[in-house]
């Protein structure tokens, strides 16, 4: 996994490309085309007028570029009851994501730290249950949570949806931090203990400053995960906190007569923009995050 192992001879490339190399690049380019086509189609479709979309020339560039579909998707498209476009969903998604990410990453960091250095009895069992929890289908947990949230009166509120995201995010974030803290030298911790530092002191003064990169990984993972969530937002968002993904699906499935494909595509791109931006801006961290579920501690 280290960079050293894939260090290859730099320097002059072999002069001739062998047929095999051509085949190699050919395959790669065909695959890349397959992966890029949907994105391309989405973008060009969203820039066309509806009349042009109906010509059925899926891959053709728009004859004149127009942003009308984008404007409509953002501010006037209908999502079932209201016709305010997808912008309210965007605001909701930002709210839900920011609050949930802050709380769940902090919780996960403390959990990982406690599990790595303060081995109290039952820590392993607790962690085992939590990791199993990462794999439990939401469907087996959601209904009791609805009942519980109704009882305490937060069902359908922002607090309710944030709580659910924190619960379902906890296993993976805890795992990431625990793996990271376990890789740090124990002496570091012991020295601090001998100097008389307590639980929170060590955490805040020594561990957190050392874990900026891993925190970035956790934040990116949670941000994309929560932003892309549909099911939890649908069930727990209530009427006032529907995230963008839910609004998007409503816009597309609410078809009064004419299906405005260009508007649908623009709304889709707007919904995908945030995670895509995160992905392109933070490639390495993103990859680390998704591999975290598979990385051995």
């Amino acid at each position, binding site marked *: *996994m280290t960079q050293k*192992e894939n260090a*290859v001879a730099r320097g002059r490339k072999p002069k001739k490309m062998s047929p095999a190399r051509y085949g*190699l*690049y050919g395959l790669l380019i065909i*695959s890349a085309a*397959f992966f890029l086509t949907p994105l391309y*189609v*989405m973008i060009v479709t969203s820039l066309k007028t509806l009349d042009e*979309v*109906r010509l*059925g020339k*899926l891959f053709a560039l728009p004859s004149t570029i127009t942003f009308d579909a984008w404007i409509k998707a953002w501010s006037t498209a209908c999502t079932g009851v209201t016709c305010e476009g997808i912008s309210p969903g965007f605001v909701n998604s930002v709210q839900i994501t920011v609050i949930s990410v802050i709380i769940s990453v902090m*919780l996960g960091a*403390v*959990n990982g730290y*406690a599990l790595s250095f*303060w081995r*109290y009895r039952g820590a*392993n069992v*607790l*962690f085992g*249950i*939590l990791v*199993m929890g990462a*794999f439990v*289908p*939401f*469907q*087996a*947990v*959601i*209904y*009791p*949570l609805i009942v*519980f949230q109704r009882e305490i009166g937060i069902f359908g509120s922002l607090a309710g949806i944030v709580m659910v995201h924190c619960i379902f995010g*906890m296993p993976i974030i*805890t795992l990431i931090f625990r793996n990271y803290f376990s890789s740090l030298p124990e002496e570091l911790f012991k020295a601090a203990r001998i100097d008389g530092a*307590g*639980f*929170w002191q060590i955490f805040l003064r020594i561990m957190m400053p050392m874990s900026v990169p891993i925190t970035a990984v956790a934040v990116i993972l949670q941000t994309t995960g929560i932003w*892309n969530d*549909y*099911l939890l937002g649908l*069930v727990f968002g209530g009427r006032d906190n529907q995230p963008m*993904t839910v609004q*998007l*699906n409503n816009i*597309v*499935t609410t078809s009064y007569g004419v299906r405005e*494909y260009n508007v649908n595509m623009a709304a*889709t791109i707007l919904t*995908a923009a945030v*995670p*895509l931006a995160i*992905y392109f801006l933070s490639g390495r961290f993103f990859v680390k995050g*998704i*591999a975290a*579920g*598979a990385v051995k501690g």
Partner: protein
Amino acid sequence: MKRKTRMWSNLSAKIASIPMLITAVGVFILCVAYSIALSFTRSRYFPKFDFIGFDQYIRLWTTDRWTVSVSNLLIFGVLFIGFCLVIGFILAVLLDRNIRMEGVFRTIFLYPYALSFVVTGLIWQWMMDPALGIQNVVRNLGWESFNFAPLTSTEYAIYGVVIAAVWQGTGLIMCLMLAGLRGIDREIWKAARVDGIPLWRTYIFIIIPMIRPVIVTAVVLKAISVVRVYDLVVAQTGGGPGIATEVPAKFVIDHFTERGNVAIAMAAATMMLLPVLLLVGPWVYNEYVRRARA
């Protein structure tokens, strides 16, 4: 005095772990137990505890919509995992051959993974539109009989969902496989070349067995996402045409929301939970609990 501090700091650790304890025990044990318990009752819109044994399960397995959901899940799961592994492996191998612009290709193959399933479902619904999608483009090129509108037929719709899922999920597998390939000792390649083993045989008989742990991890991760598949189907097909692309996750949600049949929904949820526990239990124990003790 010293003793007191130790108690105290350990106490801090325990207090700090309370949210974790509540989540692990309260949610992942009690909530799951509550769900399972409800599957043995007659709950309709609201939970009630009048136990009736396995009636809901019998009803569940005689419901067409459920059996279709399960068979869809199996078809979807096998194809999706199979294609992701094969394509992911091939792409990883290609990228591992010292090519130029590796970073660019990697970015292209992985970006769909950053998208929401809802987005993926909608894009592919549009690509597979019979009048305006790919089918129409190819026909306009002169291939009149070309068919690519799986979502309109009850028989092929599930394959349309597979295509969308593979498009989204292959990048991750490629990443894992690539990491596995990069972890292989360069000497192996030299030895294989000296022995005159052809490249493809080296890959199949030497390299694949060597990256087996990565493959197992990939299969486990993908199997989990298969059991969970929900948003993709909702966005791409809505479970249709008819009930052709219904999946268990959707069955559960639909039944405890609009259909007001909590008990059967919980029976279905319990059926979803079983394979996950059987599949993941030993793996988690091996990877995390036992390892931590060693």
